[in-house]
């Protein structure tokens, strides 16, 4: 008799037990998923499992017959990672199916321990493999979340500030990679149009390193600003950055650069023929 195939006859019992295990798990996140949804998801996976696994292929998860199971499992795992489930919760979900199967077998083979033992070994091995697949896809799902957050952060962290009539300031914090530069440049050029500003100060105090790519992005931003008829000042050049830029061989001599935002602002006032004075009373 094929023990794994025979499980199909116990489908409803298995589902009931598995759901019981899941619902009994104190870590169950009712805030994240409705019980009905959980049931539907579990039914889908269980059906795929009952259809695919036999005594013959149980030791070979790479067998094509496993593809539907792996597909469903990966889908569940990735969506759980996105929804904010922990690895433990996701692991428990899969492993509690094994517990349900074990319970069914224990009742069935209570007087044939040799069979039970052999079958349990196979079952454990199989679920080890399914567990690994679950965690691998779970981590992939998490990585996607992290990458998306990185994109979001770079978008929100590039504000354009109107510091004075006709003067814009852009504090840049973090790395100026290609996509970030694109966002900075678009924001800046749009603000120049919207406010009619004629001077933009790019402050790079918060940029950890200026390599040739970052330098090129700065040069491009300055060139684009000039095409719009505005002038660009780069401020916040720390001593170590200045030395590094010189050694790299990057030529910033065509750009107005200042050590601090304050001196850049002073320069901007100068260019606009404005004067800041103490009031004599």
């Amino acid at each position, binding site marked *: 008799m094929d023990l794994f195939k025979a499980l199909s006859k116990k489908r409803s019992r298995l589902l009931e037990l598995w759901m019981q295990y899941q619902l009994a798990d104190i870590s169950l996140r009712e805030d994240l998923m409705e019980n009905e949804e959980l049931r539907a998801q579990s039914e889908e996976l269980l059906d795929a499992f009952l259809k695919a696994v036999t005594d013959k292929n149980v030791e070979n998860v790479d067998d094509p017959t496993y593809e539907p199971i792996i597909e469903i499992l990966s889908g569940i795992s990735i969506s759980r990672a996105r929804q904010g489930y922990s690895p433990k919760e996701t692991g428990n979900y899969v492993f509690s199916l094994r517990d349900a199967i074990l319970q069914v077998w224990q009742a069935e083979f209570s007087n044939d321990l040799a069979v039970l033992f052999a079958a349990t070994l196979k079952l454990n091995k199989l679920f080890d493999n399914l567990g690994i697949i679950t965690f691998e896809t779970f981590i992939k799902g998490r990585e996607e979340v992290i990458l998306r957050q990185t994109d979001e952060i770079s978008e929100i962290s590039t504000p354009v500030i109107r510091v004075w009539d006709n003067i814009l300031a852009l504090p840049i914090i973090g790395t100026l*990679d*290609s996509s970030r530069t694109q966002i900075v440049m678009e924001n800046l050029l749009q603000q120049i149009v919207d406010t009619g500003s004629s001077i933009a100060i790019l402050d790079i105090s918060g940029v*950890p390193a200026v390599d*040739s790519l970052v330098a090129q992005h700065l040069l491009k931003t300055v060139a684009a600003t000039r095409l719009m008829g505005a002038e660009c000042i780069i401020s916040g050049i720390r001593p*170590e950055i200045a*030395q*590094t830029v010189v050694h*790299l061989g*990057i030529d910033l001599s065509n750009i107005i650069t200042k050590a601090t935002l304050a001196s850049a602002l002073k320069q901007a006032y100068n260019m606009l023929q404005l004067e800041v004075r103490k009031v004599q009373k």
Partner: protein
Amino acid sequence: MIVVLNKESIPIDKEQDVVLFRNRVKEYTIKIGMGVVNQTKLITAASELVRNILKYAGKGTVLIEIISSGRQNGIRLVFSDKGPGISDVPLAMKDGFSTGKSLGLGLPGARRLVNEFDIKSTVGKGTTVTILKWKNG
């Protein structure tokens, strides 16, 4: 004699790895007490070389080592890829040479920023660049 005190290998295959890798290098420089100027020089050189891997080879790995020689401590980075390789290395080391429509400052600039620089490349096999920066170098 140079002794390796600590080593770690980091895979590089996407843009996001650049920042992670640079932060890792920074941690090592802080661990050995490297000053901020040398830190920035090393990180910038490393940044150039890791970007070359992404741009020209697609992917590769970097080995980070803390090394010690006599009373000096330093950091050695080995960038290896199995990309297309460089046919004329002396030319690629010249300021302004670029096949990527870029500034062509990555390799020569990186060499000026570190204490030791070595490049080995075989067309069709890949490229290995090794740089070393002493704590007080």
